[in-house]
Structure formats: structure tokens, C-alpha cells
């Protein structure tokens, strides 16, 4: 149990951040042409579904939504004890698409590196962009998000937890300090 739990975003805060990111994605890409969302299992996949709804509310059209599991592309096969592999579900073509990768927390950047490798194996996209709910710093790779819900400088031993309800809607972001 963490000694201290600090609320960073409540459900309204999460919702506003996602609304803003949806607008930024549309502004940056000048609409939804060739745009697809790919969420990284599991938190990122839930957020990508929420972003899809936001974009649909603004533009009136559903952009395509895929889910990617990056376990097979990770760089720590031999130091991991949980070997569970989730399913990748991208039932559409990635070639020449503008891909927005979505994840809940950006930390070392290794997950994003793995996700980019996984996406490139499925097809050659026009570009890959990155949307993140919380950027907590401590990058170990040259990776920078394009859309950020909240910038949050943290200590390495702190944890960021995104809570989802049973509808997989993000309800809050907490900082856990030991």
C-alpha cells in the first residue's frame, strides 16, 4: 500500500483533457482523413475508445480503432515474470495511414518503442503520432508525445495509476508515493 495517494485528475479533469486532445488531433491532422487510432493494451486501448467517441462527437464520423499488444516486441523477455500476451486486433490496413498511438502513462518510452515496431510490422504508415494522458518524465529513449493530457514531473519510485470504471471509462489519475 502506498503511504500517500494524491489525486492528479478527477473524472471531469480526465474528460476535459481527452476533449482537448481530440481537438488537437483534428487540428493537427486537418480532419479525419486517413486517421486511425491505435490503443496500447490495456489502459491505452480504453482511452483510444474514449478518444474515438470524442472525435465522433465533433466530426460525426467514427475513425477506425485498433488495439495493439506490445508484449512480443518488448526488450525484457528474460527479466519479466509475467509472460501473459494479449491479443492484437487491428482489422484494417495501416499502409499510408496517419496513426495516433494512445497510451495512458508515458514513462521510459520503451513501451512506445515496442508499439512502433509492432505497428511498422503490420504496414508502412504515413506517420505515427503519440497521444498520452499523463507524461511522467524519466525517458530512456528519444521519444516525445504529440498530445499530452497532463505533464507531471515525478520521482522514479512514485507510481501513476489511471482508474477505469466497469465501462472502461477513465475516472481519475492518482499519484502513489511510498
Amino acid at each position, binding site marked *: 500500500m502506498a503511504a500517500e495517494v494524491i489525486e492528479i485528475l478527477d473524472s471531469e479533469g480526465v474528460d476535459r483533457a481527452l476533449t482537448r486532445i481530440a481537438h488537437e488531433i483534428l487540428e493537427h491532422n486537418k480532419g479525419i482523413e486517413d486517421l486511425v487510432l491505435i490503443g496500447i493494451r490495456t489502459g491505452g486501448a480504453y482511452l483510444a475508445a474514449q478518444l474515438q467517441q470524442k472525435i465522433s462527437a465533433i466530426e460525426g464520423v467514427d475513425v477506425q480503432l485498433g488495439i495493439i499488444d506490445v508484449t512480443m516486441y518488448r526488450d525484457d523477455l*528474460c527479466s519479466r515474470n509475467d*509472460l501473459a500476451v494479449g491479443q492484437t486486433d487491428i482489422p484494417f490496413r495501416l499502409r499510408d495511414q496517419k496513426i495516433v498511438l494512445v497510451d495512458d502513462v508515458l514513462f521510459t518510452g520503451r513501451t512506445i518503442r515496442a508499439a512502433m515496431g509492432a505497428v511498422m510490422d503490420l504496414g508502412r504508415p504515413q506517420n505515427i503520432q503519440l497521444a498520452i494522458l499523463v507524461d511522467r518524465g524519466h525517458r530512456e529513449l528519444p521519444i516525445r508525445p504529440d498530445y499530452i493530457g497532463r505533464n507531471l514531473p515525478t520521482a522514479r519510485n512514485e507510481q501513476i495509476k489511471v482508474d477505469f470504471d466497469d465501462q472502461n471509462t477513465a475516472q481519475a489519475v492518482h499519484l502513489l508515493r511510498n
Partner: protein
Amino acid sequence: MSFNPKHLLGIKDLSADEINFILDTADSFKEINTRQIKKVPTLRGKTVVNLFFEASTRTRTSFEIAGKRLSADTVNISASGSSVVKGETLEDTAKNIQAMHPDIIVMRHNASGACQYLADRLDCSVINAGDGMHEHPSQALLDAFTIRQHKGSIKGLTVAIVGDITHSRVVRSNIYCLTKLGAKVRLAGPGTMLPTGIERLGCEVFNNLEDAIRDADVVMMLRIQRERQGTPLIPSVREYARFFGLNGNKMELAKKDAIVMHPGPINRGVELGTAVADGPQNVILSQVENGVAVRMALLYLVAGGEKLQDDC
């Protein structure tokens, strides 16, 4: 739940949770086989040696493709054309292979327990691809995977296995696997091919095919293994085909939506009539397809985790 074994030697010592974890992992790997670029970097830099002391096409190819799709380097050694024919012992052969630092040895051998013997003596992981009359775990897992795919769940199903029960390692592994997952297993075959006491593994034994397959959800036919029999156990192949071969008429005794399985290679006209072998209920090619995904899962689970950390 996670499962992180060093070796995979048999189904007997696995729990239902561990078996389900393997099947779930295979489910995730299955998608790779339908991609345009069928390769992921998961086992990059790992070496898998397929050491086959018995003839095999399906299993060896399946393990080789599985390894290659995970980016492992795979090497095949078969007994004919190797130093085995020059009189080298199993242990010497294995130690020489180990000196080349493989990460996983996948072995098929005609002696029951040969894989355990190697696992006790080598540093690398060992996967049993069939040892004598003992176990053939990857076959049982791909069978369970295929049943789950077609029936949704294995719990509560009735599975009839018909043929040479005594000599079949596929049966042994399947009995362990299916009973652990909650299926009712029935066995049938000529008296000479039914080992005494096999019902102690938790299955029902029948001496005719009709009673065994009545209302079954799954009918698994076994190949008559002429190469594994010393003295003949049946008067003639024709007689066997007549009493224990599965044809369209007999198949009507099973449930209407029953599936027919076979570990291959099939003897057409012996254990399977052509109407059944080419019929809509057979899932034999789906077994072969799923075999690659299941073996990818096994290679991944055996190679992953902390146990090999020093080598990484």
C-alpha cells in the same frame, strides 16, 4: 496468473490454469500467422535445435515454422544422416549440441522418458515433441486449442478417442489434458490395443467404436502405428477398418455438431473413411494450423522469464 516453465516435458504435471494459460498465449500468437509479414522479434537471438530421432513431418515443420516466426534461429537434426547412425549415445549427442549453446532443444525420441533424461543433464530448456509411448504434450495442447476454438469450452464435453490406445503417446497426453480441463474422455479400441488399468487415469473404456462415439461432442481417431508394433495386434487392417474405422454411417451416432480429429498422418480407408476424412465435420487441418500457434506459445513461455537471465 503467469506460467514460466524451464521445460515442457508432459501434460501430467501441469495444472488446468497452466494449460489454459498456454492456450490463451497461443490465441494471441495465432494472429501473426495470418499477417502479410509473419514474423515478430520476440525470440531474436535464441537458438532452437529440433532433434528428431524419429520420422516426423508435421511436428518438426510446425516447431521450425513456430521458431522462425518468433525470429529464433532454428536448426534441424534428424537421426538418419547424423552421428547417431555412427553409434553415438543420446547423452553424447546432446552434450555436443549443448556445447554450441542452444537455448531450447525440441526432441522426439523412441524411448519413453528420453526428454526427462536430457532435461536432467543439460542447461538449456527441453521441449518434448513425443517420447516413445509416454507423452506428446504439444499435440494434446493443439488438440485442446482446436476443441476450444470449435466448441467454445472444453468443460463438460464428451471426447471419444478410438484406436491403438496402448502405443499412443498422443492419447496419454490428451487424457491428462482433457480430464484436467473438465471433459469426459472415452477410449475404444480392440482388446489388444487397450492397456489394462487405463481407466485409472479417469476415462471410460469401451471395446467397440459405436458405444464410445454415441452422443460424443468430439471424436478423435488415432493412426494405426504399424511401425510401433512388434507382433501384430490385429488380424488384418481390413478387419480393423471394418470394426474401428469411422465412416459416415457410424458418425451419425455422435452428436450432430460433433467434430472429427486426427493427429495425422491419416491412413485413408483404415481409421477414417474418405467420406469422413473429407467431410465438413473434420477439423484436421485446423489442428495443423493451430499447431504452429501452440508451439509458438511453448517456445515463448520456455524461453521467457527470469530463469535464463544470465544468458540475455
